[in-house]
């Protein structure tokens, strides 16, 4: 622990706060991410099947969803945070803390993730969908057994990208009172002029993002061509 004292004295001084921030970030990430994952998946699937030429074409649903996504994607997250405060308060009873951060996190993450899922599912060859229809598969069958099944590697990739960008969003949420690593860096690092605290936050985020990217890439590669994996672990 001696090196910690030498290199990051202030981090040690605010150790409890630091741990608290890490947990807050983790909570925001898991709750916000979990909800966004479910909603984004659902919306992404709806976009793909409802679009013109999709297996359940529905112009109204497609346009409404597109409009919603484009609207929220065009607002910078930091503005969205402030903009949503009244709504968050109404929904959650508070606009600060982890509880207050989940709502804007979802609004920031869902449109992004939905587009990513849409793109991932769009890479599935329409011929496979047609073959499934010809074999008597219905909408649910085609979504589960063709779209989601065939797009697994791409879905893993987009989940990785979204998770990394969500980490970024949680730190921004910290700027408006959500807590977490972001607010720890601002309040204890920047405002109190403890550069070592900022450095630790950067290193920590770097590690988190690297681990996620590596895990995501590995998993995606392994699911891409199961044959290569099976043949001797060469994951390309």
């Amino acid at each position, binding site marked *: 622990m001696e090196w910690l004292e030498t290199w990051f004295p202030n981090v040690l001084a605010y150790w409890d706060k630091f741990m608290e921030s890490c947990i807050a970030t983790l909570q925001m990430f898991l709750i916000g991410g979990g909800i966004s994952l479910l909603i984004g998946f659902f919306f992404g699937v709806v976009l793909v099947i409802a679009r013109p030429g999709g297996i359940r074409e529905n112009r109204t649903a497609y346009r409404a969803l597109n409009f919603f996504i484009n609207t929220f994607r065009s607002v910078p997250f930091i503005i969205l945070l402030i903009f949503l405060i009244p709504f968050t308060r109404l929904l959650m009873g508070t606009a600060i803390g982890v509880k207050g951060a989940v709502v804007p996190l979802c609004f920031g993450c869902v449109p992004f993730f939905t587009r990513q899922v849409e793109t991932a599912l769009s890479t599935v*060859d329409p011929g496979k969908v047609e073959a*499934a229809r010809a*074999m*008597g598969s*219905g909408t649910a069958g085609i979504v589960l*057994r063709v779209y989601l099944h065939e797009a697994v590697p791409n879905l893993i990739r987009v989940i990785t990208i979204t998770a990394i960008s969500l980490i970024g969003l949680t730190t921004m949420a910290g700027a408006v009172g959500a807590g977490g690593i972001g607010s720890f860096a601002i309040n204890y690092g920047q405002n109190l002029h403890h550069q070592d605290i900022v450095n630790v936050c950067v290193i920590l985020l770097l590690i988190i993002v690297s681990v996620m990217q590596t895990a995501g890439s590995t998993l995606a590669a392994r699911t891409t061509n*199961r044959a290569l994996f099976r043949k001797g672990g060469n994951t390309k």
Partner: protein
Amino acid sequence: MIEIRDLKKTFQTEKQFVHAVNGVSLKINDGEIYGVVGYSGAGKSTLVRCINFLETPDEGSITISGAGTFTARNGRLYHTAEGSTKEVPAGDRQLRDLRRGIGMIFQHFNLLDRSTVAENVAYPLQYTGMRRADIDARVRELLQLVDLSDKADAYPAELSGGQKQRVAIARALAGNPRILLSDEATSALDPDVTESILSLLKELNTRLGVTIVLITHEMGVVKSICDRMAVMENGRIVEEGNVYEVFADPQANSTRRFVGASFGLSNVGRLQESGFITVAPDTRLIRLTYGRESVGEALISEVSRIFNVNMSIILANVEILQDMPLGGLLIQASGDPLAVDQAIRYLEERNVKVEVILNGVA
């Protein structure tokens, strides 16, 4: 039996209406291999996709034995069950039931890349209430049928094009369909692989009695396995009938082009252009097509002798269609014009089809 009556399907693009299928009626008998040929854009793919309603026709009806009649009016589909007179709107259930009785194979195979060969073949059987052990047994049987038993655990990426199409065929046959639709299934394959896929289809047709409707732009495919055929152009059927008869005596222009292209005699044009054939005055360039009755007869020398005309053979070709020979000759006939006329008449009386391609002018 598949009976299509007055089927119409129009697509609307931004600028215009495309009448992909424009009033097609045809009847396909149980157990036959029926070929639909046409150039791309002729509407053949739309037609075949209407048979299992991947495409909903605008107007017309299709009756399929065992599945009843589907009638389209104004782009809406209605179903009348076999033996019933009550017509109900055709919903997902009717269509899915119908599709389970019709297998389909495609130009690009459309296998699931992340599933093994066995999993692909099992696809239509899963979630149908069939027991796991029964599915496995059926998959083994199907893979044996297409001669791919050793590839059960391989992934599509590890297979050649021909093997992929075999997997697709096994998958299409999994549910014991009585009809197999083939949408340009050999168009992405090498000629020798095409040959093996076609003989597999023929074998399955004979062994299982499955009716095959295949569309293709290659006359060779039709020539090698079809019993009957239709030629499509601009959404309509311009010629229909027994393959041998269509080949022996094509009527429509596009049929002639198709037959010519697969017959080798279409080289005339090129030979002419490059100056290999010149037609002297009082010489005629004639194409003869002769069927099973005339093949082998020494007609040319006979005619030459009787009418005192010179007949030199430029091209000759004999095809075997449905186990019967069909011959074609390209000859230059010269001599007294009246004698040549008589010679042509003599040939026609002996069931030889005579076409004068070029008439040398003095």
